[in-house]
């Protein structure tokens, strides 16, 4: 329907111009003609004023003389307007140019797929929000009424809810309350830092920086702490420092984790500014390459000295140990992937598929951008082909 209306509008725009071609091609007002009309009007105006007694006979005579002088001065200008073929062609071109150009522009800049949604038509959403706001208010009142000042977890929950509702300053306040509680750990401080930074539209205030430092102090491996510290360095003009910090943290990561993508993106933004080497996620997330922190060099050398049977036995014992461990800790995603890979190498297709499917189930709960998804999918499809 939207296209129909737009076509109608475009046709209307053209029609304005096409109508010109139907109209008369003469009847223009020449400058001399227009001026004379005004001067003649003025003459009759003067005599009307004289009759009404507004101006004296003397004044009327002077004014009339002045006007007549101006009338005589006219008549020097003469043009004979006409309409030609050239004009008609130009109008046709213009009438086509307008809708075509507008359509080209709109094709590039418009968003025809986005429907308009009036606020009044969003009752369900609004109800839901009202319910959340209501719960939030009750939670806040409860925490404030608590003689002990409210539980740490309560303030954290309140902060998260405020953040989701877009009440940034309130979120920061709630996290700040949480940070004053006993047992506030690194995560609390990094959440506080994040809320403060968001509330200030990305600017890292001294207060936020104190929270960052506290988060790092309590847990130097908290990625959020490192990330915001790097942002702080970047904002202070120490881009290289920020970049190094991000890369170092990526290098010391054990496994892939979703935060690494954010680190890589930020590090590359800074790298472009300071002229450092751009990095890619694959350098730090081993799963991307299909490998795993497997046997060490010594292991491999030791295995190399064994006979074929001994080797086979050794590998199978390692795999069995891994399988046993995973039976007890079934949530180890990377473990399942390693197991799948091992079975694949051993050509145990069914068991490899089993392990990868376990991994796939666990992947449900991760980011859609997680590179392990692709790795698992690829392995499964390879196994399926065999």
């Amino acid at each position, binding site marked *: 329907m939207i296209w129909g209306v737009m076509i109608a509008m475009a046709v209307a725009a053209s029609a*304005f111009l096409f109508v010109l071609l139907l109209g008369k*091609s003469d009847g223009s007002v020449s*400058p001399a003609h227009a001026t004379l009309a005004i001067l003649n009007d003025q003459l009759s105006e003067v005599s009307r004023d004289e009759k009404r007694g507004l101006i004296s006979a*003397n004044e009327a005579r002077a004014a009339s003389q002045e006007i007549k002088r101006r009338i005589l001065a006219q008549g020097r200008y003469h043009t004979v307007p006409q309409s030609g073929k050239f004009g008609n062609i130009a109008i046709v071109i213009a009438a086509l140019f307008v809708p075509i150009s507008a359509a080209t522009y709109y094709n590039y800049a418009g968003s025809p797929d986005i429907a308009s949604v009036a606020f009044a038509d969003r009752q369900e959403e609004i109800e839901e*929000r009202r319910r959340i706001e209501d719960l939030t208010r009750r939670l806040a009142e409860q925490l404030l009424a608590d003689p002990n000042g409210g539980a740490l977890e309560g303030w954290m929950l309140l902060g998260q809810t405020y953040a989701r509702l877009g009440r940034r300053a309130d979120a920061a306040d709630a996290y700040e309350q949480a940070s004053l509680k006993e047992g506030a750990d690194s995560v609390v401080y990094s959440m506080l830092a994040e809320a403060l930074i968001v509330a200030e539209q990305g600017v890292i205030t001294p207060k936020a920086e104190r929270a960052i430092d506290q988060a790092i102090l309590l847990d130097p491996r908290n990625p959020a702490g490192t990330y915001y510290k790097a942002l702080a360095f970047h904002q202070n003009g120490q881009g290289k420092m920020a970049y190094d910090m991000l890369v170092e943290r990526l290098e010391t990561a054990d496994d892939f984790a979703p935060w690494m993508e954010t680190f890589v993106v930020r590090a590359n933004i800074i790298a472009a500014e300071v002229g450092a080497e751009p990095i890619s996620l694959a350098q730090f997330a081993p799963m991307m390459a299909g490998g795993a922190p497997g046997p060490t060099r010594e292991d491999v050398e030791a295995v190399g000295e064994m006979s074929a049977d001994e080797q086979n036995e050794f590998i199978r014992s390692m795999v069995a140990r891994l399988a046993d461990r995973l039976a007890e800790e079934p949530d180890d995603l990377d473990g399942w992937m390693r197991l799948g890979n091992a079975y694949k190498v051993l050509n145990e297709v069914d068991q490899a598929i089993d392990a990868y499917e376990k991994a796939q189930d666990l992947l449900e709960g991760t980011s859609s951008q997680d590179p392990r998804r692709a790795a698992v999918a690829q392995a499964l499809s390879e196994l399926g082909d065999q």
Partner: protein
Amino acid sequence: MLPELGHFSLALALFLALVQSILPLIGANRGDVRLMRSAEVTAYAQVVFVGFAFAALLNAFITSDFTVLNVTNNSNSLKPMIFKIAATWGSHEGSLLLWVFILTIFGAGVAIFGSNLPTSLRARTLSVQAWISVGFLSFMLLTSNPFDRIFPPPLDGDDLNPLLQDIGLAMHPPLLYFGYVGFSIVFSFAAAALIEGRVDAAWARWVRPWTLAAWVSLTAGIALGSWWAYYELGWGGWWFWDPVENVSFMPWLLGTALLHSAIVTEKRDAFKSWTILLAILTFSLSLLGTFIVRSGLLTSVHAFAVDPERGMYILGLLALSIGGSLTLYAWRAPAMVGGGLFKPVSREAGLLINNLILAAATGTVLFGTLYPLFLEAITGDKISVGPQFFNAAFIPMMLPLIFLMGLGPFLSWKRADLAGIVQRLKFVAGLTLIASLVIWYLYERGPVLAFVMLLLAVWLMFTTLHEWAMRIRLFESDLKTAWRRARNLPRAAYGMTTAHLGVALLMLGMIGSTVWKDEVIKFAEPGTTLEIGDFDVTFEGTDRVRGPNYFSERGILRVEMDGEYVTTLYPERRTYPVAQSTTTESAIRSTPAGDLYASISAPSLESAEAAGAWTLRILYEPLVILIWIGSFMLCFGGLLSLSDRRLRVGAPKKSKTLGSQAQAAE
């Protein structure tokens, strides 16, 4: 769907404007009637499509359609309807759309009412006007699209800057834009006349009403903005010489000059080239105003339009339009045929001096406004040019103008009799002196400049009234004749009298509210009584009030005079949770004698908050109401004059009748 149709509509309007900026010019050059006529149809088409786009945006604001980014950023579902509507032009993008909408309305106006204009002049004028349209529409579509979308929409919007949620300010931008854009039409006429190479009676007849309409809107816009600052910002001032105020004041000053010079062009066929130059410069200053406000070049109370990239685009437009038109002027203006001659003492000469003073005053304000910018650009030093500079440089320059304003209307066209006028005004001069001394005696203090200002304000008032009395022969014949003459007097004459009286009142208000102001700023606890003027103001405490999208702390101030209860003032400090900002709402008791003005600031110390102590700012500003009345009279006078559709010609009087009669048909 509507926002997308609005977007598409703007694109159609842009390309229609492009057509309009080329075809009619070719037509006028070749004498092709159809091509010249195309200016009219494209002008109509533009107003239809831009109007549709504006309606689409308005609808998005009214229904709170948060899929439109502009609505999300500037509105909120809880906002009162009137401010939802006003938010349409409260944002940068929306205000541009309003700008262009007004531009196209005026363009259609020229097309509709211009049937008695020479066809070629009308075509060229509309074509020049379409250049401006192209500039602004492309600026909007390329850098500031009001129809940018987001999906999924956020649950609610971020709200408009609460300072802007005010009825005075809701009307301020549209009026200001009517003024700016009105001058754009005059500019288009001027550029068309330069291309045409001649200025004739039809041209002059057309330029004056457009100038007048633009000037009235601009006056009203500036006055509203000033009124808003007075009661909303909580400082009790009505003019701060803030750069953003200055940039609207400069086109006003030059527009005032243009208004008077257009009268000479219309009546005496003189000052043609000068009128054209003024038209170009006035619109250039309007563009400069838009540029300075929209680029965020200046940091001031008007800090809500900050975007340097857009600034570069407007700077380009500015350079193109001002540079282009001035080049055109330098090339074509010498070919203009000069008009009526006049003697050094005459109405023309008076108006010429008026023009020179106004132009010099504009230059002064321009210098004071731009100097800090240039200094910062060149040396990196940040300075601000404050009221001291403007008061010292601008006010003394304007004083001779006020003197002339009183005198001017007595001068007749072409040649005037100075001796006769002096004879006539002896009485008024005496009256002025006595009245000023009486007022001075009543207040008994204030600097010399203020006294001179007062003297001139009173002078202007009496001369203006005297001139009117003389015209209707109030004291020279019986009352019946005077009444008949008063009724027959053209509305344009009343327009002038009203506007000039308005200036006199404006000056009195300015003097009263600055020189005789009484101000107390105090950190007060409940129960404290402050003395100000003749009033005793007792701070009784605060309470909390809830509004639709804000809550506020409201101070309660009991006002007494000589032990008698006068009124209670409730200044507020409002907090808007969504926009996360606070505003002050002053409480004002307004009487003709003066305003008692109170505002309340947040307690600065936590311990003080416990004690309920607040910073109170209380002012007594005598006669401040005259500023608003004077501004209103300026606008009303302009409208009166605008409503006068009479044709004008200014004829000199015959020498023998000099001094004995009112001057020729006004």
